[in-house]
């Protein structure tokens, strides 16, 4: 029969806790999703497709940039294609604004905004509107006199064939009169490459600028997780140094140091962080430091408690007697023993920091790095809630970033709880 070490027992306890195991799996999944996801789903999050705007999940369109330029014997612009035969079907479209004017309950005129050309009738959502007759019920609000509708006008479809050779140059471009064809992405119906359709699917839809939401969530997750982990590490380092020093020094110094912690504990730190972010530039490095400085107090307290319980043990006395220096005793013999507890609390600190960063981003202070704004989950949720619409038509913009964030926070909290219960059954904060 073999004996079981306390660590093994702790892991057995953890294994029994299904909720925290689930949390651990969730965290692992989210980390892999954010770190490796952008390589798997190839659409670039910085590609802006303004003409599409916000589209619902599973929206798909031909794979091209917002403008495609094809010139014979040159590389195609706005398309990335390998060698092979290409077929593009396109159709010119125009969006027209049509003005419908009402007088005495009857339609007075229907005319184009642009060239003021008059029409006798127009079809609108299966309703026929005819000049001189009453419009369908519900089309005009009470007291509304003028209605402007937008209609798409489409022209005949064209099919363009060309080849791409080994060097990536357009060959055999068949055009009617010129050597260059310029196509807008909204006019392209499909792109076939060696008889295979080239399309992009936006699994989670697109945002207001037509950027892929899935990609943005994954990149935002990187920012959120990075802030969470680095700021926690900062607080960890400060807290461990401070806590061990206070505990090891003891006496008056300990009292003063922990008194300072007590005082700082009562400060509303997030206010100061907010001020810091407003006043100085919102550099991500500064944010790491600021959020780390908020969190180190708890860590210092926990570490101090741990060190105090260790310091009178026999092996420390033995180390002292054998002539080990203070630093050696602290960082060879004491700190490693506190690590278990520290790691447990680190797991619980990461979600708190992520939440604080997203709080700042939601207020309207997203982090920046060298002048460019880094969108974290917090700022995605913020943008989503702004773009939601009156009755929540663009729900996906808010829903998916929120879900990503809640999953991660839930996973981290559940895992941290389980770890704490398993490794440290006595502390219950």
């Amino acid at each position, binding site marked *: 029969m073999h004996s079981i070490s306390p660590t093994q027992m702790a892991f057995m306890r953890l294994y029994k806790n299904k909720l925290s195991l689930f949390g651990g799996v969730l965290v692992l999944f989210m980390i892999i999703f954010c770190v490796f996801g952008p390589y798997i789903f190839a659409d670039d999050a910085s590609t802006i497709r303004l003409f599409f705007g916000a589209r619902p999940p599973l929206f798909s369109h031909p794979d091209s940039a917002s403008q495609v330029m094809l010139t014979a014997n040159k590389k195609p612009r706005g398309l990335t294609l390998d060698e092979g035969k290409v077929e593009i079907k396109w159709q010119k479209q125009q969006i027209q604004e049509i003005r419908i004017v009402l007088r005495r309950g009857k339609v007075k005129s229907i005319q184009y905004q642009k060239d003021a050309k008059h029409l006798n009738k127009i079809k609108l959502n299966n309703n026929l509107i005819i000049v001189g007759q009453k419009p369908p019920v519900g089309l005009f609000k009470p007291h509304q006199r003028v209605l402007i509708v937008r209609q798409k006008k489409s022209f005949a479809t064209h099919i363009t064939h060309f080849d791409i050779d080994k060097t990536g140059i357009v060959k055999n471009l068949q055009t009617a009169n010129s050597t260059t064809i310029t196509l807008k992405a909204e006019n392209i119906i499909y792109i076939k490459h060696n008889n295979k359709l080239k399309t992009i699917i936006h699994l989670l839809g697109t945002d207001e600028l037509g950027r892929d939401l899935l990609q943005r969530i994954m990149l935002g997750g990187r920012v959120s997780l990075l802030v969470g982990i680095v700021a926690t590490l900062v607080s960890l380092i400060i807290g461990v140094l401070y806590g061990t020093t206070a505990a090891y020094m003891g006496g008056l110094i300990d009292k003063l140091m922990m008194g300072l912690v007590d005082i700082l504990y009562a*400060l509303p730190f997030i206010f100061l962080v907010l001020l810091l972010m407003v006043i100085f530039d919102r550099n991500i490095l500064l944010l790491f430091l600021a959020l780390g400085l908020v969190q180190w107090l708890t860590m210092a307290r926990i570490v101090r408690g741990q060190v105090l319980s260790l310091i009178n043990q026999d092996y420390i006395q033995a180390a002292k007697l054998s002539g080990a220096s203070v630093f050696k005793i602290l960082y060879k013999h004491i700190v490693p023993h506190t690590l278990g507890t520290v790691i447990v609390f680190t797991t619980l600190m990461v979600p708190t920091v992520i939440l604080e960063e997203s709080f700042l981003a939601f207020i309207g202070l997203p982090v920046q790095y060298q002048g460019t704004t880094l969108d974290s989950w917090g700022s995605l949720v913020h943008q989503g809630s702004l773009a939601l619409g009156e009755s929540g038509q663009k729900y996906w913009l808010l829903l998916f970033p929120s879900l990503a964030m809640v999953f991660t926070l839930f996973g981290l909290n559940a895992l941290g709880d389980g770890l704490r219960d398993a490794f440290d059954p006595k502390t219950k904060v």
Partner: protein
Amino acid sequence: MRFFFAKIIYAVTVLFILATVTFLMIRLAPGGPFSQDQALDVSVTDALNKRYHFDKPILTQYKIYMQNALSGDLGVSLKQKNKPVSEIIVTHLPPSLFLGAIAIVLALLIGCSAGIVSSLYPNSGVDYWCMGLSVIGISLPAFVFGPLLQTFFARYLHWLPVAGYGDIWHLFLPSLTLALPFASRFARLMRSGMLEVLNQDFIRTAKSKGVRPFKLITIHALRGGILPVVSYLGPAIASITTGSLVVEQIFAIPGLGREFVQSALNRDYFLVMGTVIVYGVFIVICNLISNFMYAVLDPRVREY
């Protein structure tokens, strides 16, 4: 008595440090309240700087501000047409206070009852659900939960107003949003505190003496079991004030939190100082009350 005095001295020190740090931070930062107004002439900004003592050395400014603040004069807002800061605070504090108060009461009610129930039936289905929900409650940020409640109860069911401030119904969704994470924390603290007490000898003695279960829980166990909740109450109130910054934005409540964020963005020095000091006083008082309550419930603490 010494305990109470020590705590009060602590509280005053905290306030002093908070005011000093905030003052130094906003004064030592690059840019000033008038640097954004490009239309202003140099002579005008000079005059403005002189009027608000911004031309003097920072220590003198600090002395002037502190003297004025101690005599109750928090200065005027630099961006809102010379409105006194105290007036702005007086108009915007009540909504925040109501919101926070309702939230903390809701959190205590929900959290403590959930905690007690799950401590009475540990490792049962009820316990499992309560604790699972509490993890979700902690993980659900206010700016996710708030819009969720808004969409469901206001936009979909039309039971409650979407946003704004007026009667008690306007405050229901915001305070629920604000209360959720704290209710979850209270539930866990209550559960662990009760579990610890329920396993002690005096409870067994009381039980064997024939004390009725209801009385046993409410009178005997609760006094000890609620200690962790009470000690967390101070920090919780501090976090509720910061949480209200977000909730006030989501639900468009004209509270102090929005004023603070706006004034920070506008570099409205005196308004920032004023709001931070008011928040600081509030938090410190809540911490004090929490400490004293703890001392009343657990006499051992008083000896320190």
